[in-house]
C-alpha cells in the first residue's frame, strides 16, 4: 500500500485511535462469531447466525453514527453495529446461550435478535424487513420531539424485496426523515443469488423511486463506507432526508448454523471472497500506515481472546430463566 493512501483515514478526519478502535470492533465481532460457531459445532449452542465477512462494512457505517444520540434497528448479522452501540461480549454470549441475563431478550429469542433500550438498539424479530418502518417511525418521532438525531436500519439485499422496505422508504422520502437505510448486499439470500433475487443491478438504484440518494460502496473498504455514512448522517441531520447505502459484501459462512452452502455456491468463490475480507485488508492497511504495530496487534488479539473467553465462561455458567418466566411481559404488569 503506497504512502499516498497511507494517511487516508486522517485525510477523512479519523484519528489513529479511532481507526484502531474500528479495527478492534471488527476483530471482536469476528472472534465472537467464530467462537459461537465453534460452540454450535460442539453442540453447546443450538443456533448461530454469522456476521463473518460483513464486519468491516458494519463497523465503517456504525462509526459514523453516534451511539449516545442515534437509534439503530439492526438486522441479525449486525454484530459489528451492536458492539459499537455498547453491547458487550458478555451480552452477546449470554444471548448465544439463551440465558436469563441476555439483555436482548432474556433468552427468549435466538442470537442475532438484538435489542436493548440502554444501548439505543430497537428490539428486532425474525420476519425480515419489519424493522425498516420502525426506524422510520423512530425518526418521525424524534423529529416531533425536536431531537436532532439519525436512525439507522439494515437488511440484506434479499430483504429489500419485501413490501415493508418499499413502503418505509417511500414514507421516509415523502417526509425527508433522518434515516439511513443500510443494505448489506452479500450476494445471497440463503441460497438464492442476486440475479434471481432482484430485477435490478444494484439495490441503490431503488432510492431514486423514493426521492433520495442511493449509493453503492465496496463493503470491504471500511473507510469508504465510513465516508458514505458520514455524508448520509450529515444530510439527515441537516434535514435533507434519508440515504440508501448499499455495500457490496460477502457472507463467508453458510447462512446460519443450520445451512449447508455447498449446494449453492462453489468453494472457489468463497475462498476468493476471503481474500477480499475487510479484516484482512483493513488490517494490512493499518499495518502499512504504522498505526497497527506488531505489539499493538498482539495485545489487541490477546485482549479480544481473553474477553471472548471470559464472556463464554460467564455465559455458559449463567442460569436459564425459570420455566414460568415464560408467562411474563405479555402486557405491562
Amino acid at each position, binding site marked *: 500500500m503506497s504512502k499516498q493512501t497511507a494517511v487516508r483515514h486522517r485525510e477523512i478526519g479519523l484519528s489513529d485511535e479511532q481507526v484502531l478502535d474500528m479495527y478492534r470492533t471488527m476483530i471482536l465481532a469476528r472472534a465472537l462469531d467464530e467462537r459461537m460457531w465453534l460452540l454450535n459445532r460442539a453442540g453447546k449452542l443450538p443456533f448461530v447466525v454469522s456476521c463473518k465477512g460483513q464486519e468491516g462494512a458494519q463497523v465503517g457505517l456504525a462509526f459514523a453514527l453516534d451511539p449516545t444520540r442515534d437509534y439503530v434497528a439492526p438486522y441479525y448479522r449486525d454484530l459489528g453495529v451492536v458492539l459499537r452501540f455498547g453491547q458487550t461480549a458478555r451480552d452477546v454470549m449470554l444471548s448465544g446461550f439463551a440465558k436469563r441475563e441476555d439483555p436482548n431478550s432474556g433468552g427468549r429469542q435466538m442470537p442475532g435478535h438484538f435489542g436493548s*433500550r440502554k444501548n439505543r438498539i430497537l428490539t428486532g*424479530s425474525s420476519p425480515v424487513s419489519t424493522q425498516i418502518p*420502525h426506524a422510520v417511525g*423512530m425518526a418521525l418521532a424524534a423529529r416531533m420531539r425536536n431531537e436532532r438525531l439519525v436512525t439507522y436500519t439494515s437488511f440484506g439485499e434479499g430483504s429489500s424485496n419485501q413490501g415493508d422496505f418499499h413502503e418505509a422508504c417511500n414514507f421516509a422520502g415523502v417526509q425527508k426523515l433522518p434515516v439511513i437505510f443500510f443494505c448489506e448486499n452479500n450476494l445471497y439470500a440463503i441460497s438464492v443469488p442476486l440475479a434471481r433475487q432482484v430485477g435490478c443491478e444494484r439495490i441503490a438504484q431503488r432510492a431514486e423511486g423514493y426521492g433520495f440518494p442511493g449509493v453503492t460502496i465496496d463493503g470491504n473498504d471500511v473507510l469508504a463506507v465510513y465516508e458514505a455514512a458520514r455524508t448520509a448522517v450529515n444530510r439527515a441531520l441537516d434535514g435533507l432526508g434519508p440515504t440508501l447505502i448499499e455495500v457490496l459484501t460477502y457472507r463467508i459462512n453458510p447462512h446460519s448454523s443450520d445451512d449447508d452452502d455447498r449446494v449453492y455456491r462453489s468453494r472457489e468463490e468463497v475462498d476468493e471472497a476471503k481474500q477480499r475480507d475487510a479484516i484482512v485488508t483493513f488490517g494490512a492497511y493499518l499495518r502499512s500506515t504504522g498505526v497497527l504495530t506488531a505489539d499493538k496487534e498482539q495485545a489487541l488479539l490477546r485482549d479480544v481472546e481473553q474477553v471472548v473467553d471470559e464472556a463464554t465462561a460467564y455465559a455458559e455458567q449463567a442460569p436459564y430463566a425459570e420455566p414460568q418466566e415464560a408467562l411474563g*411481559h405479555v402486557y*405491562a404488569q
Partner: protein
Amino acid sequence: MAVKLFIDAIRDALVYEMRQDDSVFVLGEDVGLRGGVFRVTQGMIDEFGASRVIDMPLAESAIVGVAIGAAAYGLKPVAEIQFADFIMPAVNQIISEAAKMRYRSNGDWSCPLVIRAPFGGGVHGALYHSQSVEALFYHIPGLKVVVPSTAADAKGLLIAALRDPDPVLYFEHKGLYRLIKDEVPDGEHVVPIGKAAVRREGTDITVITYGLMVHYVLEAAEELAHAGISTHVLDLRSLLPLDRDAIIEAARRTGKVLIVHEDNKTGGVGAEVSAMIAEEALYDLDAPIARLCGPDIPAMPFSPTMEKFYMLNPAKIADAMRTLAAF
C-alpha cells in the same frame, strides 16, 4: 354530560387526549384535510397541524410499522386504517411486531399503539367495506381488542386505549357512527379495557354480544319482554381480554345462553365465549349454548337482497331468542 353521536364521541376522545398529552398523534389515509373518509378526524388538522394529524401514503403496513417505531420511541400514535378490511396488509406488523415487542425484549421495549378501524356491514359496503375482522386478532396474546357499542363507551374505551401501555385495536362499527347517540360525560371519562357491561337485566335467557348487535339484541329483548320473556344482555366491549367473570356470571344468571355476532360463525369470538362457558359453567346450563352469527361465506355481498340476507337484525335475533327461551 351531553348527548352525542357515536362518531363525535370518538373525535372527542382524540381531541381531549391530544390536548393534554402532546405525545398523542394520529396518522392514516386522508385523516388530514379530508378528516377521514367518515369524518372522524374532521377539523383536527386545523387544531393540531399536519405534524400531529399525518396524511399517510397508501400503504397500511407502513402506517402501522411507522406507528410502531414511534410508539417504541415513546410517543402515542393512533393509526387509522380506513376500513377494517384493509388491515390485512398490516397483519405482519400487528401480529409479528406490535404484539410481541414487549415479550420478545423481556419487557425492555414496548409498543403503546392504538389502531382504529371502522368495521361491519349493513351499509352497502359490499365484500370489502363490510367485514368484521376481530377474530383474526382476539387470538393473539400481546394485543388488546375493544369494540364499543355506545357513544359513552366509544369515548371511554378510546381514552383507556390511548393510555394503555400496550397495543390496542379499537374497532368501531361504521353502522353506529350516526345511528347511535347517548349521554357522554364531558372531559375525563375512562372505561377500563377488559370489563363487559350488563345492558339489560333479565332472568329467562342470556344474550352475549358486542358492537352494533348490542342494539339489535336490545330491540329484540324489548319485543320479547312484551311476550313475557326476560332477557339478560351482556355487551362484551372488550374481546381481548374477554371478561371471563362477567361471561360466566351472565351465563349462570339464566342458564340459557345465546351468543350473537355479525362476523361469521366458525372460529368467531362466539366460539371462545361458548367454550369458556362449556368449560366453567356447564352444570349451570339449561340449554345448549346457541350462537347466531353471520353465515360462513367469504364476505357480505353488495346487492340489497344478499346483504340483508347476511346481516342479522332484531327480527332474526328475536326468533333465536324465542327458540332458546322455549327450550
